[in-house]
């Protein structure tokens, strides 16, 4: 399933503040203050305030509301166990109050949402049903609509998408009748998401659009951003990348403005996909890395939260067990105690496994993303190479051609023999440069390279030299391994090393015959370049820059180069490279 932003995961109803009584009851004051703090996301302060309220509260209605509000606050703080306990307290308390129907229905709904967030869908459905039953008695349309909306989410998680649509549509029509714009915006977004997952693009675009417009009217920037991103994701899915980009652009501006890392992260991933689809791997990589960084920091936070939650849960259960143990100490036998210990041990084990699982999960996720990043790096490199090759082709190539032709015409127009020779020399250098560039460009453009293609190129290059410098070429490549494939960089290095040797022969050796052999011997590829020319003494060998290049290049591939040269008898260069490093 694709990425989706379910804007409100569920509608946790904070009870309407009962301000109308203008009571001087201090617990009511704390309740109102706590709810206000909750709305502005100051959860810790809200918790503190509500607890203070509880200590002053004396009537069941206020107590119910305080417990419920605490439940909401704790849910958002990620303390789900504690939240559940407070909802249950509220349930117990509300039965003594006058508004029992309303409280019960709302509390069941809140508990269902809590289970849903803990991904315990069975319990979530159970409480949803309870809430529906209680809601029938209470008969409040807004509540019914909220319930439909939450049920839609639940059905969506259970992969019953068509039923989820029905549920959302029921909610949407009620919100519409009640002119509740905010809920309509939320519900329309949910409809967009589910239609998207049903591949019903038209409906998805329509409902995202509705949600976006209403969010704009309400000036709710979080929802505006989320809707832009959802539209971006939708267009990415339908491969309308330009539309996707426009929406991500808008989404990113607002997400950054309101400082929502989750939303920013979605945009970054969207951009990465957009640029990848456009073939702009450099930018794709840039956004993928930004996305990665942000994900890592968010994941880290998530991990810390998860571990903290496990610790609290474990601590709580242990305490409960200890209490049970104390109460029954005298009645229970020792084996009962052992059971308790065993249970604790089991809990510890489960905790350890869970924590381990989280780490493994994170590691796997990282590996996956790392792999994708590497792929993008490779594509970026390829694109860069292609660009350089293109530039060389366009700029240098035509420049050299011009030099060639201008010197040629100068040659024709001059009567001076010395000048003619100089021009001929320039022309010859230019054409050599041109053919070198031809090889380089081929090497830059091509990917991994079959043995026969590489050998063919080397042979062509050497034949050209043999013609130009007037010596014979004896070329032999192993025909038994024609399907061997060299890595692109290895093929390039092999080609350039042999070319370097051939250059040396052409320039300095004054040879009659050049022999090039490319053989597969054991676990390695052996290239032998041998000539019958002048040869050279060791001093030249040390100072030669070209020969240093040979060594450097072979070392990269864990290979070795042997050079034997005898004055007046010729030179033999043998380059050996292990196949496991140079082939695919």
């Amino acid at each position, binding site marked *: 399933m694709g990425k989706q932003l379910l804007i409100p995961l569920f509608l946790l109803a904070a009870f309407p503040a009962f301000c109308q009584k203008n009571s001087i009851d201090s617990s009511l004051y704390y309740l109102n203050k706590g709810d206000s703090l909750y709305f502005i996301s100051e959860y810790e302060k809200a918790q503190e305030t509500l607890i203070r309220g509880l200590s002053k509260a004396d009537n069941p209605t206020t107590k119910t509301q305080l417990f419920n509000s605490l439940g909401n606050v704790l849910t958002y703080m990620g303390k789900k166990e504690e939240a559940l306990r407070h909802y249950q307290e509220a349930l117990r308390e509300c039965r003594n109050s006058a508004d029992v129907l309303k409280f019960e229905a709302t509390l069941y709904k809140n508990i269902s949402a809590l289970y849903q967030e803990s991904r315990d869908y069975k319990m979530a459905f159970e409480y949803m049903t309870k809430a529906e039953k209680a809601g029938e008695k209470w008969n409040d349309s807004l509540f019914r609509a909220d319930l439909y909306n939450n049920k839609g989410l639940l059905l969506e998680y259970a992969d019953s998408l068509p039923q989820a649509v029905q549920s959302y549509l029921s909610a949407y029509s009620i919100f519409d009748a009640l002119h509740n714009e905010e809920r309509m915006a939320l519900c329309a977004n949910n409809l967009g998401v589910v239609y998207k997952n049903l591949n019903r693009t038209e409906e998805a675009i329509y409902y995202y659009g509705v949600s976006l417009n209403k969010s704009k009217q309400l000036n709710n920037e979080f929802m505006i951003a989320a809707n832009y991103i959802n539209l971006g994701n939708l267009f990415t899915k339908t491969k309308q990348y330009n539309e996707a980009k426009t929406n991500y652009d808008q989404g990113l501006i607002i997400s950054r403005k309101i400082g929502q890392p989750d939303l920013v992260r979605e945009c970054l991933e969207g951009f990465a996909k957009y640029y990848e689809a456009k073939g702009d791997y450099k930018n794709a990589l840039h956004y993928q890395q930004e996305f990665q960084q942000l994900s890592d920091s968010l994941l880290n936070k998530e991990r810390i939260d998860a571990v903290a939650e496990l610790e609290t849960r474990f601590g709580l259960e242990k305490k409960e067990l200890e209490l049970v143990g104390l109460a029954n100490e005298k009645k229970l036998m020792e084996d009962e105690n052992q059971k308790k210990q065993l249970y604790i041990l089991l809990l510890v084990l489960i905790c350890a496994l869970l924590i381990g699982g989280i780490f493994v999960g994170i590691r796997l996720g990282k590996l996956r993303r790392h792999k994708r990043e590497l792929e993008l790096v490779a594509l970026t490199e390829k694109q860069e190479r292609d660009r350089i090759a293109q530039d060389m082709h366009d700029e240098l*190539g035509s420049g050299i051609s011009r030099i060639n032709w201008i010197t040629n015409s100068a040659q*024709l127009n001059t009567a001076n023999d010395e000048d003619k020779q100089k021009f001929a020399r320039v022309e010859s250098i230019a*054409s050599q440069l041109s053919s070198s*560039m031809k090889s380089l460009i081929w090497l830059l453009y091509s990917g991994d390279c079959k043995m026969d293609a590489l*050998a*063919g*190129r080397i042979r062509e290059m050497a034949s050209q030299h043999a013609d130009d410098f007037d010596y014979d070429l004896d070329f032999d490549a192993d025909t038994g391994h024609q399907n061997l494939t060299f890595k692109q960089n290895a093929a390039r290095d092999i080609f350039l090393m042999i070319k370097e040797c051939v250059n040396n022969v052409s320039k300095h050796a004054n040879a009659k015959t050049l022999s090039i052999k490319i053989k597969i011997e054991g676990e390695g590829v052996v290239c032998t370049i041998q000539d019958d020319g002048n040869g050279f003494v060791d001093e030249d060998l040390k100072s030669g820059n070209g020969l240093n290049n040979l060594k450097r290049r072979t070392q990269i591939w864990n290979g070795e180069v042997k050079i034997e040269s005898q004055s007046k008898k010729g030179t033999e260069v043998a380059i050996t490279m292990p196949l496991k490093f140079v082939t695919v």
Partner: protein
Amino acid sequence: MPLNIIIVEDDNEMRENIHAFLSSIEDYKVLGSFGSAEDALTDSDFSTCDILLTDIGLPGMSGVELIHALKSKFHRLQCIVLTVFEDDEHVFGALKAGATGYLLKGSRPTKLIDAIDEIVAGGSPMSGTIARKVMESFRQKENVQSEVLTERENQLLGHLSRGLRYKEIADVLGISVETIRTHIRNIYQKLQVQSRTEALNKLRGL
């Protein structure tokens, strides 16, 4: 009778140099040189032309399109493509459109004369990379094309793609360099037939 040549090249300096160079050769006559395919088509008479030398990348109509347009009318016209590098795709496209040779602009100008002479003598130059591409192209189409390569032609392409020169291939196959030239000319013609069939298939929606 002199050899009549028309040049199409959008780089002024280059065009003038080629024009001057070819004019200086005995037996060659440059009928005209143009900066675009459109100018060449409107301002010159190709019915008396023997050799067209054209760049591939031109403003407006490309060199490949020019060749395609001319070859359907003037069968005996030989087209040589001038290109900066052995850009496989473009060169191959030109060959399919009916070019019988191509030449790298960076090569020594005297090679241009060699190439023209070779083509006039009934041969066609072909490099290893192009040979490889030709082979691939025929391999892909083998099942639907009536024109297929003979075993000899395949052998020849194989040797070319391994970097062997005409003389070396002649030695290996025990035939003359002239025969090799004829074979390669035939391969070029089959390549054009292939592209015509391809176009026809497209037209019928096959």
